[in-house]
């Protein structure tokens, strides 16, 4: 009964979405303000019914209603309750329902916080979001219904949730990621509404900026959580694999990052308008494309969800309408690409352009790397796969270029900057960076060798931090109390850029100094890695709620001082019979000690992987700083000054 209620609620939500896509849009052309206002209530109604539908599916999971095919495939009576909830989005159908719920949520947020916008614009934005909702609701109902029953043969027990997904990281990673993906629907809707109305001035840019930032912050957190989860859950210490699904999330992130930068120029100087619109369309298009690639089974991936050509065809039609339609609109209505404001070589505009070129190039090369196997296959060039060497080959130099340009950009001003001013600011940070790059790697290396990777990494990080510090000093002197006087968007920017520096540090140093040994250890054996002594005391059986495990105890000491007791596990999940490695980690800012338990060997010995990973934690610390920076910038005071923003509307093109 509950499942039918959920199904029915979804159908009503589809109806609401259909009305929401049509009524306010028609109203905006006819000038019926009551029709335009209806968008707001329709969006709330839609959220209400999607939420009921989602709630029903969650209740079906909690009640172990295995008459639902989706529940029986992804849950089990022994599964703890919090994993039963997260199992709702463990696979295709539930993920899509979560998509629809989040989209409805963003739509209501736009409806609530856009009261200061002109009614026509709001109506069109809500209409576009409603149209996207229609697409997703249809996709759910026609090809991926989570409420499908298995009658009359109801299974007694469910197949259980994939043990890899039974983890706190996986409870929050997909919702965060979807918040980001779907969040880009908002700037997309802003862009489409602007193209329809022909208004894309700095006021438009200012209205859309907080939404762009928020979606991007969620995506940043989502990707970070995914990487962190892969690191501690997959059990072998890697944190990024250039898997098609990871690439699918990185592409909208890179374009979103480019968008954040280009829209700032559009707001402040009225430049790059068509480019900004295009990026807003791209960011959401790539989110959709990512969903398509993952869901259609068109590419092989370790995230392998069941592939289904019917879904693929639907998704492709949806992509063609949304992306093709919006690009067609862009082609017909887009603002002519002409310079509206002059800027010279050393201006912030040019630096932002460099930023955009690098970010979009990175995205393009990832897109090519991800789709090349497909294109080659279609062109009968044979089946090929593109591996990490390709991605690293392009991504590393592009990142180096980005970081160097960023350091210079800090000192530039809008319109034009005196080149002698920039040249006078550069030497001190440059010197600091070169000196740090010369000294630090020698100090960090355990064997007096010099690592080029580490040198370059330290150079990049030091260069960024020194230039940011120099700029802060120019702004507020050395009186730290004056930090409070700086605007949120300035602080957010600097925090995010510092986060980038920290992240680069983590990536570079952890690759340069990673020490991994895979050993056969009998109880009582010792091993030395990077100055740490690992003592293996043996393995004990332990039981969890739905698994049994072998748990090893490893005592880590340094200079006879206890560092940590680590308990890696090898788990055997009862329902599905899968074996999982649960790594044990002793984290700290400067290094992680990472131990995972391999296979049992003869005579009570076990295979163990012992790793010391310097600064690996900085990767996620930096990424979190980037996200907080984005959030801080989104709360800048000027986005909340309604009256003033309305007054500025007159700066129409």
């Amino acid at each position: 009964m509950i499942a039918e209620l959920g199904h029915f609620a979804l159908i009503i939500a589809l109806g609401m979405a259909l009305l929401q896509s049509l009524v306010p849009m028609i109203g905006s052309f006819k000038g019926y303000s009551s029709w335009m206002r209806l968008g707001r209530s329709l969006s709330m109604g839609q959220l209400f019914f999607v939420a009921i539908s989602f709630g029903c599916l969650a209740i079906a999971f909690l009640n172990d209603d295995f008459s639902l095919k989706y529940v029986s495939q992804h849950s089990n009576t022994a599964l703890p309750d919090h994993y039963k909830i997260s199992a709702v989005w463990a696979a295709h159908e539930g993920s899509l329902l979560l998509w629809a719920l989040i989209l409805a949520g963003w739509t209501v947020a736009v409806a609530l916080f856009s009261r200061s916008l002109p009614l026509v614009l709001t109506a069109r934005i809500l209409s576009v979001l409603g149209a996207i909702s229609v697409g997703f609701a249809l996709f759910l109902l026609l090809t991926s219904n989570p409420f499908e029953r298995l009658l009359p043969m109801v299974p007694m027990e469910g197949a259980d949730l994939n043990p890899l997904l039974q983890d706190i990281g996986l409870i929050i990673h997909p919702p965060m990621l979807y918040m980001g993906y779907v969040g880009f629907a908002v700037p997309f809707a802003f862009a489409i509404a602007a193209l329809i109305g022909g208004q894309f001035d700095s006021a438009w840019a200012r209205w859309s900026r907080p939404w762009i930032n928020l979606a991007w912050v969620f995506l940043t957190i989502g990707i970070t959580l995914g990487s962190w989860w892969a690191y501690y859950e997959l059990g072998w210490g890697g944190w990024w694999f250039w898997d098609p699904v990871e690439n699918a999330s990185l592409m909208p992130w890179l374009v979103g990052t480019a968008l954040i930068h280009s829209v700032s120029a559009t707001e402040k100087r009225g430049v790059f308008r068509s480019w900004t619109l295009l990026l807003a369309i791209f960011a959401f298009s790539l989110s959709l494309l990512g969903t398509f690639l993952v869901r259609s089974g068109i590419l092989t991936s370790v995230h392998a969800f069941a592939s289904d050509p019917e879904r693929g065809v639907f998704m492709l039609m949806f992509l063609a309408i949304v992306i093709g339609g919006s690009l067609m609109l862009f082609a017909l209505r887009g603002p002519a690409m002409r310079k509206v404001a002059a800027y010279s070589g050393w201006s912030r505009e040019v630096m932002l352009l460099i930023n955009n070129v690098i970010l979009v190039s990175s995205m393009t090369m990832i897109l090519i790397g991800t789709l090349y196997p497909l294109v080659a296959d279609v062109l009968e060039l044979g089946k090929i796969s593109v591996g990490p060497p390709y991605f690293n080959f392009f991504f590393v130099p592009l990142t180096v270029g980005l970081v160097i340009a960023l350091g210079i950009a800090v000192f530039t001003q809008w319109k034009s900057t005196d080149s002698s001013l920039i040249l006078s600011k550069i030497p001190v940070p440059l010197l600091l960076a070169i000196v740090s790059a010369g000294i630090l790697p020698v100090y960090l290396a355990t064997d007096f060798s010099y690592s080029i990777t580490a040198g370059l990494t330290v150079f990049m990080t030091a260069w960024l931090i020194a230039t940011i510090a120099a700029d802060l000093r120019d702004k507020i002197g050395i009186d730290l109390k004056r930090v409070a006087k700086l605007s949120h968007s300035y602080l957010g920017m600097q925090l995010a850029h510092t986060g980038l520096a920290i992240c680069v540090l983590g990536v570079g140093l952890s690759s340069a100094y990673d020490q991994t040994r895979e050993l056969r250890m009998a109880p009582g054996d010792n091993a030395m890695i990077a100055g740490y002594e690992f003592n293996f005391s043996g393995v004990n059986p332990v039981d969890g709620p739905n698994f049994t495990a072998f748990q090893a105890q490893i005592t880590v000491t340094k200079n006879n001082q206890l560092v940590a007791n680590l308990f890696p596990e090898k788990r055997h999940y009862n329902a599905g019979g899968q074996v999982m490695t649960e790594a044990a980690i002793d984290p700290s800012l400067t290094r992680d000690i990472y131990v995972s338990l391999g296979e049992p060997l003869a005579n009570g010995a076990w295979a163990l992987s012992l790793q010391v990973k310097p600064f690996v934690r900085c990767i996620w610390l930096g990424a979190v700083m980037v996200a907080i920076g984005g959030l801080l910038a989104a709360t800048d005071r000027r986005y909340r000054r309604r009256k003033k923003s309305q007054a500025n509307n007159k700066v129409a093109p």
Partner: protein
Amino acid sequence: MNRIALFVPLMVFAILSLFLLKGLDRDPTELPSALVGEPFPSFILPSLANDQELLSERDLDSQVVLVNVWATWCFACRIEHPMLNQLAAEGIAIIGLNYKDQDQQAIQWLKQKGNPYLFNIVDAQGSLGFDLGVTGAPETYLVDAQGIIRYRRVGVVDQRVWDDEMSSLYQQLVGEME
């Protein structure tokens, strides 16, 4: 001129869509069956256990074998490995093709995870992989006693793939031999 430039993104997307549409009909894990029914390509490559020893396609002859393409850099191989151990324990002959890998790491891997392979062919340059049309690791070929490739699996061999697609063919080939 400027207006035409605005159409460029649409064109790019249209071309991309064509590829996506064509790609939908293709299962990326499906075999491009060029080599199925053909003899295993000839090669002379060192053995992983002893790099002085050279192996060739003749070492595959006279029994039904699985040739498993693997590497330590391959994530899915980690998932597949326990299944190979299980098949080896059931007495199925598996030969490893260690693909574009480093010998020391590969030896370490086998020490740590168990060694399901009768022997391993070292294809450090990927030359045999090229002749086989390897798209990536893991890949598994079923080669009959005459050295003819009879089946190809791109991607992980798990219990389901084995039961549904490989087991009966394997038994049949073993039967043919006797």
